[in-house]
């Protein structure tokens, strides 16, 4: 039997109409039959019950006065009722009188479950072919016996059979009428659908999207036909657009500068290739399309095994591949490095991979050259860094050595101008008079001058000694500073010392003290404008190094400037709620605007003997301490001002070492 979904709509509609009609007929007929049977049976039971009551009433006297003959005579009247098989009167639990229709072989089983002295209760009992009614017989409200009547259900069966025959007749007629009506009405429904089907079949066979279905009705099928035609219009438009788009993409594919090819996901045969790929692999198009992927892939772990699952990949397995480096073979056998990007696509009803294999042989060579150059550059940079360290050390040591030289010159000059020669001449004067030294110093006119002279000389020598001790101390301090510079620069200016709360003004005084003589010699006026500020948290030696550098630069600018008098101004103040500033301003040669932009760059200097390191390292050191170093100048000849900002020390700050560098 053909499945329903394979049948035509006409048959389906006929079947639906038929089933609907028949279902309605069968259900209503069955319901009616059940209702009639139940009603019939109810009437039968009611009739039997009435007859039982009448019998009970008619046999009360016979039961009361135990007249069996009269009772049986009364029961025998039931012979007129053809459907009654038997009737029995029970009295005190025993059969008192009974009636059996001749030919009936059915007896009535008394109910043994109750007391035989008590009359049975009213009841109805049904079997497949009989119904039995039990009724009590009462006399003045007191039960005196029971009457049992049993009737067969042959009339009911006959009624049901008759009813079923009628139902079958209605069933048949309904089927016929339903089929006739369905055929009549289905024609109007089916015609538009058949027209649609014919049009769709023609389009499917001929691929002719200009075909249109004829609208033959104004109902839903008419709307469906119109929608179908509109859909065909859109399909036609989209097919045209798709053809144009495909042509455009084919041009793009062909003319793409990226080597691109397409291969079958199952057979790995090449399906399409563009001109760039042909030029890269140096095949003709016919040659390339006769090959498969293994012909150009050289590695055993090729694109095939690595990226494409086989033999039946699922959708999940088709993941795009990006930036996969492979080595491919050209027609002439030379190898090229390619970077492969692949995307799974659907190409003419088959799974395929669109592969862009860009030749990166030149790029890889360039990368190797670049890596070598980079390595060389790193080595050069390392050497440059070492030179920078050395330059920094020499620069800072040179600054301090100026002070050391000054101190050493002073000591030498003072020692050269020492009064020790006067003491020697005095001792030479005293040597001839050693025998009579007392007389000489008391009586001789020259001798009387010796004692006051010695006293004066002693005071002078003591004063000179103090000055030399001071200079020696300064020399010691400077040498210690050189030691610190060397130690600090050994860690390439990244290792900081201990940060501690420092007085900004004291820092200026320390730095100035190392250069004070050079300023005095050059007639440079020094002005101090120290506003009261809190202490700053900084590395003492780094700050001193910065300030020494700034003061030295200022001295150089003042020496080369034209302003008279030459003036160096040192300022201390509050820059912000968190920072203090220490400024070194001069009215020297000034700084050109273009130089201001580069003044903190490594190697930039305006001095003939400069290295371009001091300000660079000073700015770095200031940043490391959480501060900054800035500059301002109104231009050449108008002086300049350098401003060092440092963070305030917390109230409870204690000297702390910075975290060690990695």
């Amino acid at each position, binding site marked *: 039997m053909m499945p329903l979904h394979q049948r035509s709509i006409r048959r389906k509609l006929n079947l639906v109409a038929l089933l609907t009609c028949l279902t309605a007929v069968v259900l209503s007929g069955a319901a009616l039959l059940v209702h009639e049977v139940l009603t019939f049976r109810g009437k039968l039971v009611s009739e039997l019950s009435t007859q039982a009551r009448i019998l009970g009433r*008619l046999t*009360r*006297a*016979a*039961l*009361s*006065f*135990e*007249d069996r003959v*009269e009772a049986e005579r009364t029961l025998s009247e039931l012979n007129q009722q053809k459907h009654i098989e038997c009737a029995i009167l029970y*009295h*005190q639990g025993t059969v008192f009188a009974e009636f059996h229709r001749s030919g009936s072989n059915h007896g009535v089983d008394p109910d043994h479950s109750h007391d035989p002295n008590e009359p049975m209760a009213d009841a109805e009992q049904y079997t497949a072919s009989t119904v039995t009614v039990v009724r009590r017989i009462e*006399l*003045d409200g*007191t*039960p*005196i*016996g029971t009457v049992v009547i049993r009737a067969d259900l042959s009339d009911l069966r006959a009624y049901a059979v008759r009813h079923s025959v009628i139902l079958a007749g209605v069933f048949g007629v309904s089927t016929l009428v339903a089929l006739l009506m369905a055929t009549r009405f289905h024609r109007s429904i089916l015609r538009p659908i058949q027209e649609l089907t014919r049009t769709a079949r023609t389009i499917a066979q001929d691929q002719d999207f200009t075909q249109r279905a004829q609208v033959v009705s104004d109902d839903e099928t008419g709307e469906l036909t119109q929608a179908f035609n509109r859909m065909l219009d859109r399909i036609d438009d989209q097919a045209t657009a798709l053809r144009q788009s495909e042509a455009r993409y084919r041009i793009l594919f062909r003319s793409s500068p990226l080597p691109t090819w397409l291969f079958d996901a199952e057979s790995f045969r090449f399906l399409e290739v563009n001109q760039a790929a042909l030029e890269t692999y140096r095949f003709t198009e016919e040659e390339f399309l006769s090959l498969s992927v293994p012909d150009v892939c050289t590695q055993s772990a090729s694109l095939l095994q690595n990226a494409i699952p086989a033999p039946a990949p699922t959708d999940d397995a088709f993941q795009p591949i990006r930036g996969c480096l492979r080595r491919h073979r050209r027609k002439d056998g030379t190898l090229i490095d390619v970077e492969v990007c692949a995307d799974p696509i659907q190409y003419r009803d088959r799974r395929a991979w669109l592969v862009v294999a860009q030749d990166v042989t030149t790029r890889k060579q360039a990368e190797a050259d670049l890596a070598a150059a980079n390595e060389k550059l790193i080595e050069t940079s390392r050497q440059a860094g070492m030179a920078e360290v050395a330059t920094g050390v020499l620069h800072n040591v040179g600054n301090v050595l100026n002070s050391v030289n000054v101190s050493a010159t002073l000591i030498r000059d003072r020692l050269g101008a020492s009064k020790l020669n006067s003491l020697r001449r005095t001792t030479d004067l005293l040597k001839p008079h050693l025998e009579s030294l007392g007389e000489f110093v008391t009586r001789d006119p020259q001798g009387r001058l010796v004692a006051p002279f010695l006293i004066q000389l002693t005071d002078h020598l003591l004063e000179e000694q103090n000055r030399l001790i001071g200079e020696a101390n300064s020399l010691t301090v400077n040498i210690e500073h050189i030691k610190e510079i060397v130690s600090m620069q050994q860690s390439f200016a990244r290792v900081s010392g201990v940060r501690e709360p420092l007085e900004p003004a004291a820092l200026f005084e320390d730095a100035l003290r190392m250069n004070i003589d050079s300023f005095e010699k050059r007639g440079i006026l020094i002005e101090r404008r120290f506003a009261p500020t809190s202490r700053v948290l900084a590395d003492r030696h780094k700050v001193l190094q910065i300030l020494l550098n700034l003061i030295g630069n200022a001295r150089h600018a003042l020496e080369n400037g034209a302003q008279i008098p030459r003036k160096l101004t040192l300022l201390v103040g509050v820059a912000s709620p968190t920072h203090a500033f220490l400024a070194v301003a001069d009215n020297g040669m000034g700084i050109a605007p273009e130089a201001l932009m580069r003044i903190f760059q490594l190697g930039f200097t305006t001095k003939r003997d400069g290295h371009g390191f001091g300000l660079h390292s000073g700015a770095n050191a200031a940043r490391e301490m959480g501060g900054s170093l800035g500059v301002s100048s109104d231009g050449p000849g108008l002086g300049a001002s350098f401003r060092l900002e440092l963070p305030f020390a917390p109230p409870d700050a204690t000297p702390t070492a910075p975290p060690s560098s990695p």
Partner: protein
Amino acid sequence: MLRVLALTWIALALTLASLSARGQSDPPGSVPEYQLKAAFLERFRAFVHWPASHDPAQAKPAVLGIVGRNPFGPRLPLASKQPGGDARALRLVECTTPEDTLHCDIIFFCNAGSELTSASLRVLANHPILTVGETAEFARAGGMISMVPADRRIRLEINPTRVARTGLRIDPQLLQLATIVQGKDS
């Protein structure tokens, strides 16, 4: 005194002997005659309709008068066990004079002497009092219903003329069971 005791013992012995003889006369499994008659006497009330002014149902218990020898004792035997019977519904009185019968609803003439029976029937001639006897001649001789033993059952004879004269009405079902007889006077 000794004579009285001796007579009492003799009477008791005769009574027991009589009862024993009566019991032996009934076939085994069947209901004794007077027990059946007692049940019938009770059931007559359901099939006899008294005039409204004399309906014993209005004043229970109805009074059953015994004229002659009382075979039942103070109460109807087994009456309460019979279907439709209610021993308390009948109160037994023994009537020794014809006038005693006027206070009854049903009167059972049991082996009464013909003189007392005749006198009583005359007194009751126009009173709606059901008279029941146990001889075949009773209904013909002025009684209403006779309970005549026949073929191990009780056969009823009814004199409807006599009944109708007193205003009583016999249920047709009862009449259907009974043999209709006519009185000698009719």
